[in-house]
């Protein structure tokens, strides 16, 4: 049973029970989640046209951000946590002040729904992408447009900056991932291999890996510099809507249409754990900055579904011989 340094338990921070902490409030699908840099706040973006800010320690709703006139599909915090940015089906990107919940800027330019946003590691640049197939860059300080990066041949669903600021990755319905150089705003790489829509993207903390979730039911791990696939995780029984790195990049968590969370060894691609986390498709997952919490959420239209917080723990996860039913509960 040796060889394990980190796995996952379902125990919430303040309870020995195996159940996650449950946060209720949204009235429609939750499409995106983001922890604040200090990990004290969790932002959730929903089809009910709002964002909610949750106090992570207390497990309570701190504030509801209203202003979008359409579903909210994406959310990201600034590196200092003072503001956050959201992407919406109302064709706008909004910058909000975290403390007051007031709108700081409304960014207009996209011609169509905006599905994803990301903030550069230094906090100077906001990237957004959506139905108009353009990656738009904005000056975070005043919301002025900086550039529109063309190239994708389909809706853009995922955006991520590497922590070293070297890459901006965009994932699209055109099945490709494009790696842009944020400094020059030039296309640097095109990653091909997925056989269907590419959804959310996440870089590993050291920037050496990129994880992409796809409609083709897989998660791919990429080596950005080499533009090469490192591993194909035959992830799920349906589309995979999100993935993220855990444990300093040693694990990858993925979730999607089959309502399950899967944990993978990022180095070997081995499936380490799987459990049914929700009764509805899971559209979003996020890991807290210092790693103790994994947040997951989704929805089935107006079937109201909770946001769940799972505690990551230094528990051993036994080598698995997963039954065909694949775990109804975390191991």
């Amino acid at each position, binding site marked *: 049973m040796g060889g394990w340094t980190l796995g996952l338990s379902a125990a919430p921070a303040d309870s020995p029970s195996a159940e996650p902490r449950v946060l209720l409030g949204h009235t429609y699908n939750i499409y995106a989640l983001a922890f604040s840099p200090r990990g004290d706040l969790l932002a959730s973006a929903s089809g009910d046209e709002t964002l909610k800010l949750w106090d992570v320690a207390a497990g309570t709703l701190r504030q509801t951000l209203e202003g979008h006139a*359409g579903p909210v599909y994406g959310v990201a915090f600034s590196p200092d946590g003072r503001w956050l940015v959201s992407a919406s089906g109302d064709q706008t990107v909004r910058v909000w002040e975290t403390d007051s919940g007031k709108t700081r800027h409304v960014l207009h330019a996209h011609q169509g729904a905006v599905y994803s946003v990301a903030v550069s590691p230094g906090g100077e640049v906001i990237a957004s992408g959506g139905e108009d197939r353009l990656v738009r860059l904005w000056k975070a300080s005043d919301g002025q447009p900086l550039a529109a990066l063309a190239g994708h041949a389909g809706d853009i669903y995922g955006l991520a900056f590497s922590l070293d600021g070297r890459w901006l990755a965009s994932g699209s319905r055109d099945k490709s991932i494009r790696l842009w150089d944020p400094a020059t705003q030039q296309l640097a790489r095109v990653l091909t291999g997925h056989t*269907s829509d590419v959804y959310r993207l996440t870089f590993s903390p050291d920037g050496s890996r990129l994880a992409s979730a796809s409609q083709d039911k897989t998660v791919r791990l990429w080596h950005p510099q080499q533009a090469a696939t490192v591993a194909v995780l035959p992830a799920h029984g*349906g589309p995979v809507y999100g993935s993220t790195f855990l444990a300093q990049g040693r694990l990858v968590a993925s979730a999607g249409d089959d309502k399950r969370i899967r944990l993978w060894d990022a180095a070997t691609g081995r499936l380490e754990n799987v459990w049914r986390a929700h009764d509805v498709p899971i559209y979003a997952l996020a890991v807290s900055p210092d790693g103790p919490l994994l947040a997951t959420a989704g929805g089935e239209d107006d079937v109201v579904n909770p946001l769940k917080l799972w505690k990551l723990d230094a528990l051993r996860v036994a080598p698995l011989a997963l039954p065909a039913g694949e775990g109804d509960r975390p191991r």
Partner: protein
Amino acid sequence: MKTMLPATLTLAALCAVASAAQVDEALPRPGTVLVNREKGELIACAVVQHPEDKPCIDDWGQRVQAFVGCSQAAGGDAKMAGYFVFLVDVPTEVIYDGLVQLGAKPQVHYSIQEGQRRAGLKATTKPEDYLQGDPVVLSIFWKQGDNWIERPHQSFVDEQVLVDDQPVTKPWTPHFVFHGSGAIHHSGTGCLACPCDCPGGIIADNRFPIYNPKPTVRFNWTGAPQPGTPVYVRIRPLASR
């Protein structure tokens, strides 16, 4: 005119007519549709699948996703393909174009985002809060042994209503209209005939306003073709003039 063979129009060069010697009527080959203006109908190929762990398949529930839908839509894989029992093998837009060729007209259509804004039955609900278009009838047919079986689409689904707070099963009685939203607004869902008033597909049951309320329904597998069975979907619009 009665002595003339029905004029068949095909969509795209790939469309073709199957050997009449082997079947009772002209049928499309896989990956094509047959648009027959004489009969005023469209036929598409599909395969039966059993969507695992999806609403309304093995238990009562509510859903926006169609029971019959396409594998492709809006230039890519259909987002809801895993929800369909009858999975049609051409893009939604091909079905849309075929229905338009037959004279069917969408009237009120919205993007999904706009649909969500208009959702629900409220005191302020207006006529334009219902998706609208020419009425449509769908049926599914397949060969079983030497016989062809054809059943109306609505016969595959039961509906549940509450009477004096008690659930009562009744026939599913949708009112399908061709609103075209999914193709016009590039939803990408692949849905063809939605069991509620949903702008993700191109045909919807518009008994109620968009999205809510939704009927409580369950697919009835009794007498349905088994998963994996190739079937045909016949769509007949009542084209207004």
